């Protein structure tokens, strides 16, 4: 599946549509996508890839964008930045894509930030590093929530629970290091002291030694910031070490597989994330509810596995792009960028987006809720 093109059905529709509709430019709108479908970030890239295909199929069945079918060209970068650069240039210069969504990891996004900026092609990244949109680059956006919002929600909850002394452990990935830096930056603002703060190898398979050291530091809570399976291992190791400290995870934990892997040790874990995984519990008045329920249902029907917030990033990137092209009425890059910057309370899986020329992430504190695990299921955390 070199270029995962869905050209055949799309072209067929285009032909049918073109003879119906006026002589409108029948050629499809090409959108590039760079995901780490295999390799170290496969747990994020694979759901993103599957979601993107699902969303594009849906758009094309609904008549495409501006009457033109969408051709999604997905490249598997295996989370390596040199491949991301090569694919970005190929998508821009050869495939002449209208915009690029992804990449999966922060490292890749930073590598191609300049490439897209200089080429004047909109890039909507699915990675969360703050530096992607700070300093703001005209053509570069990102859909995952800001790390510091996640941190501030964590610290607010800790303040409510009277927790003041914590230990921080994070995987040595861009995601892990980014979170650890934000945790350390905002700790004093919320009166939290970090007794111990350390990085572990992203494919660590046993963390009992590290957690014993953390436990010896006499912490009331442990914050684990990672997207790897280590999240379930930390949970199990803490219970095996009979640690009484409360375990907080990052929004990387928002994938039911990690709960299943941690089994009973997952009970009571608290973590902030988007509303996707607790869509069912949302009041009907919540604008995101319908959208989240539909995404959950469609994804589960197609791939018989539960949707995760990572797949949600691809969903948001594509729907924002579609909304921008439609409101701009054209696929001209500058018009698309202005249209995105003018998007107000746009409902996505990660939250309600409010973009602006200065804020290319568009998500605020209210895009996040605190979630916990009860009887192996995610549920809204309503205080102690």
């Amino acid at each position, binding site marked *: 599946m070199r270029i995962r093109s869905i050209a055949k059905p799309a072209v067929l529709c285009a032909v049918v549509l073109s003879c119906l509709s006026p002589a409108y430019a029948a050629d499809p709108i090409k959108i590039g996508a760079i995901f780490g479908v295999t390799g170290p970030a496969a747990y994020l890239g694979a759901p993103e890839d599957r979601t993107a295909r699902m969303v594009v199929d849906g758009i094309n069945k609904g008549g495409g964008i501006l009457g033109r079918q969408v051709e999604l060209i997905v*490249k598997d970068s295996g989370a390596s930045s040199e491949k991301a650069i090569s694919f970005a240039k190929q998508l821009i210069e050869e495939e002449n894509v209208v915009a690029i969504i992804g990449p999966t990891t922060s*490292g890749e996004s930073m590598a191609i930030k*300049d490439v897209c900026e200089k080429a004047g092609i909109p890039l909507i990244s699915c990675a969360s590093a703050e530096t992607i949109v700070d300093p703001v680059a005209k053509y570069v956006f990102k859909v995952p929530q800001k790390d510091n919002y996640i941190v501030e929600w964590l610290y607010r909850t800790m303040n409510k629970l009277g927790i003041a002394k914590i230990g921080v452990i994070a995987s040595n990935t861009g*995601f892990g290091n980014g979170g650890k830096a934000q945790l350390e930056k905002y700790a004093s603002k919320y009166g939290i002291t970090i007794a111990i703060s350390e990085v572990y190898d992203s494919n660590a398979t046993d963390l009992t030694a590290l957690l014993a050291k953390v436990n010896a530091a006499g912490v009331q809570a442990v914050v684990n910031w990672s997207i790897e399976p280590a999240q379930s291992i930390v949970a199990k190791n803490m219970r095996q070490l009979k640690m009484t400290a409360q375990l907080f995870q990052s929004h990387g934990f928002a994938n039911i597989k990690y709960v299943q892997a941690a089994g009973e040790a997952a009970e009571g874990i608290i973590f902030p994330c988007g509303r996707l995984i607790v869509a069912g519990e949302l009041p009907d008045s919540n604008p995101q509810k319908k959208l989240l329920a539909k995404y959950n249902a469609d994804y589960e029907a197609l791939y018989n596995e539960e949707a995760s917030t990572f797949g949600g990033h691809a969903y948001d990137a594509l729907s924002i792009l579609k909304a921008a092209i439609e409101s701009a009425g054209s696929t001209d890059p500058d018009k698309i960028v202005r249209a995105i910057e003018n998007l107000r309370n746009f409902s996505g899986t990660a939250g309600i987006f409010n973009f602006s020329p200065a804020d290319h992430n568009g998500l605020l504190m209210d895009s996040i809720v605190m979630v916990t695990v009860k009887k192996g299921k995610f549920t809204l955390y309503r205080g102690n």
Partner: protein
Amino acid sequence: MAGLKRYLPVLACALCAFLAPPLLAATKTAYLLTQLTMSAYYALASLGLCALMGYAGQISLGQAGFFAIGGYASSFISKVDLSPFASGGFVKFLGFSGLLVRGADAYGKAVLSISPWVACLCAVLLAAGIAAFIGTPVLRLKGHYLAMATLGFGIIIERIVRGTQGLGGADGLSGVPPLPILPGLAVTGERAARAANFTIAWLVLALGLLALVNLVGSRAGRALRALRDGEEAAGATGIDTSRYKLNVFVIGAVYAAVAGVLLTHYNGSIGPGEANFAKSVRYVAIVAVGGMANLSGTLVAGLVLNFLSLRGVFGRFDDAVFGIILVLVMVFAPAGKERGLQVFRRRKGAGG
């Protein structure tokens, strides 16, 4: 292999350096230049490994480590901001000798940094130094131990670049400045300089091949080939086998470091992925499919395989393809003549 026949591949490579850009522009496929330029640099690193594995018969599973040392050292040194030390003697000396560059970082703050040329030179020297330092003990080892030691070295480099915040951790370093060569000509990924950079890359590759073709035909080259076919016999003809192995090991490291430096400045960034074990395995696969002791074979294999991989032709089976190559090349490669002689020797039995 006497005569000018062995210089044909060098000539072909140099010709491509100049002819390809206009040709590709004419056929509206100029966008291929990016991936062809990147493939040239990766092929350069494979050439270095071919000298070590093919001609000196020593295996290295750490070639990507040296590539990363080159790339990371050059980008780190050229990005470090010296303005806080502006008053220091050393910085004044650099300024005096015109080696300082004024610029602005992403936020527009004025930055004083060393000229990328100095950074590039330091990076290559650093790689050569590390290769010489670890090469001495490592090359006393044989077979599995040598493979394991070089594999261990590669992983240590990968863990260090991935774990160190100063080197960008898992995100790597980005915003690496271009490497100016002549006024108006620089190693950079700018779209305007695409054709020029292609020519630079393929000329560097041609020069790299030329140097090795000369070496193989020279006195030192003969000694290397003797070393590969039989270390003890080579020693008896007066060849200091450990120094020769070390020299080739350092040359291989320098080739990888130069490739790392140039590609990093071309891409404008480098990630820890450049140092991981899978990358080293790719270089080994390319040398193996190129025919072990076949410089032009390695060059062609390096260009083709990297080009296809960078274009995403293999899609999600990118790693699998290199795995299949390794197994097939080893299963169907001729067992090599030395096997024959060894069997003969065992039957004869040593007398006396």
